[in-house]
């Protein structure tokens, strides 16, 4: 039998499922593959706890950006930093043109934030609209809108886009591009979810790309993608109720925190458990009551904005 190089990568390709007939033959004769497959499945369960990015970011910003800005609190992106190097480079290039382009991209940025407990409607220069859900932020450059329609999104928003140039939404985990359509983008922690309500949407994430049409959605979480079938004509969060379908308790409580401007503290609660249900956005006692009774938990408000949740006795 000839000794070709693919032998040294055989198991790697077995895992991917990308085999030639020859390789498949060789694998049939190999033993221990079932045990190996079982080991790999067991290994799946050993994921690390998710990284608390905001907390780590605060620590990093304190040692980097804020040191140079000499002001505490949040990061400023409106005013560009004036490094000596940048000035030298800008001066070297044709002054007028150089400064003009630089101003264009940095100074002319608009930012809209929907704080916790509120939603916000933003109108874009071409008439497209964006509904921001609580705890979300949208930024874009209105000055160059006619050439490039692109927004940065943190959190969740529902878009109604006018026909025109390619419209793109950049978020932490994905890039969504459309030509003219209605869709919802959710990107928080490690979960990216895009739902298309009209037209066609292309979602790029983790070096892969999906195109979905009206009534479809895609959810990318920890590298796994799932196709979704949408039941309604508009996202649930815009209807005055919060809909959950097999969401983890962590996600549920975080959404409740955002909608009602609360700080929820849990003790001995398994936040990975799944909850399915519809709860109101306007009555915190009913909302908490419904989740807690379904999951055999009890809640207690310790002050106006803090809630303690623990297993029910």
């Amino acid at each position, binding site marked *: 039998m000839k000794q070709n*190089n693919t032998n*040294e*990568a*055989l*198991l*790697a*390709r*077995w*895992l*991917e499922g990308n085999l030639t007939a020859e390789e498949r033959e060789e694998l049939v004769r190999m033993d*221990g*593959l079932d*045990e*190996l497959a079982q*080991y*790999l499945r*067991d*290994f*799946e*369960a*050993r*994921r*690390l*706890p*998710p*990284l608390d*990015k905001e907390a*780590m*970011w605060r*620590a*990093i*910003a304190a*040692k*980097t*950006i804020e040191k140079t800005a000499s002001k505490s609190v949040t*990061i*400023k*992106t409106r005013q*560009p*930093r004036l*490094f000596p*190097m*940048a000035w030298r480079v800008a001066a070297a290039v044709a002054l007028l043109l150089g400064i003009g382009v630089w101003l264009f991209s*940095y100074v002319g940025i608009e930012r809209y934030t929907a704080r916790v407990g509120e939603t916000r409607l933003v109108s874009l220069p071409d008439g497209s609209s964006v509904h921001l859900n609580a705890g979300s932020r949208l930024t874009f450059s209105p000055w160059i809108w006619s050439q490039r329609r692109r927004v940065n999104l943190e959190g969740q928003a529902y878009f109604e886009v006018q026909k025109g140039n390619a419209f793109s939404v*950049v978020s*932490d*985990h994905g*890039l969504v591009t459309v030509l003219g359509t209605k869709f919802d983008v959710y990107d928080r922690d*490690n979960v990216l979810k895009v739902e298309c309500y009209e037209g066609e949407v292309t979602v*790029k994430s*983790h*070096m892969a790309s999906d195109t979905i049409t009206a009534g479809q959605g895609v959810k990318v979480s*920890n*590298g*796994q993608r799932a196709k979704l079938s949408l039941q309604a004509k508009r996202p649930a969060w815009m209807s005055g109720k919060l809909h959950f379908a097999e969401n983890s308790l962590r996600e549920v409580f975080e959404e409740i925190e955002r909608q009602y401007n609360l700080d929820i503290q849990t003790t*001995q609660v*398994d*936040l*990975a458990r799944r909850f399915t249900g519809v709860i109101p956005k306007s009555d915190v006692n009913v909302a908490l009551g419904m989740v807690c009774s379904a999951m055999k938990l009890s809640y207690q408000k310790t002050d106006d904005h803090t809630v303690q949740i623990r297993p029910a006795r």
Partner: protein
Amino acid sequence: MAETKNLCDDAAFRAVFMRYGESIRNFIYAKCNDLALAEDITQDVFVTLWQRCADADPETVKSFLYKIASNRVIDYFRRNKVAANYISNRKSSVDHISPQFLLEEQEYKVKLDRVLMDIPEPSRIVFLMSRMERLKYDEIAERLDISVKAVEKRMHKALLIIKSRIGKKI
């Protein structure tokens, strides 16, 4: 996806952190098996990136980060004279992992770890990036700055060792 912005920009730097922070932490964890340490070193890595932001290119920042991370871990072990022993470091990591994580059966976990210990580091790292982070081979190749072929060979080696070790029922 991102326009070629200078990484010395606050928003660009934050975006890079949001995108790669967790992967870098997981990569470092795979090397030192201590979650708190991995998170500390992750912070250092990004602080270093900020200090060298003028050298960094948004196109290649991913592999740049992995290189910084590798070096930082080596520095740490050198300074602390602690061998990168996968099992002896486990005690320190247990305190920092959530109760959920600890709920897994301890014995079986030790068995899985022992098998991993037999895999030489280059192959083990590729294995963990593939199985824990679900990265594809071309993605791993890009981050570690090696060829896809090299990734496949290392992965094959790791799987071969695991297969032979579990066959012996240890």
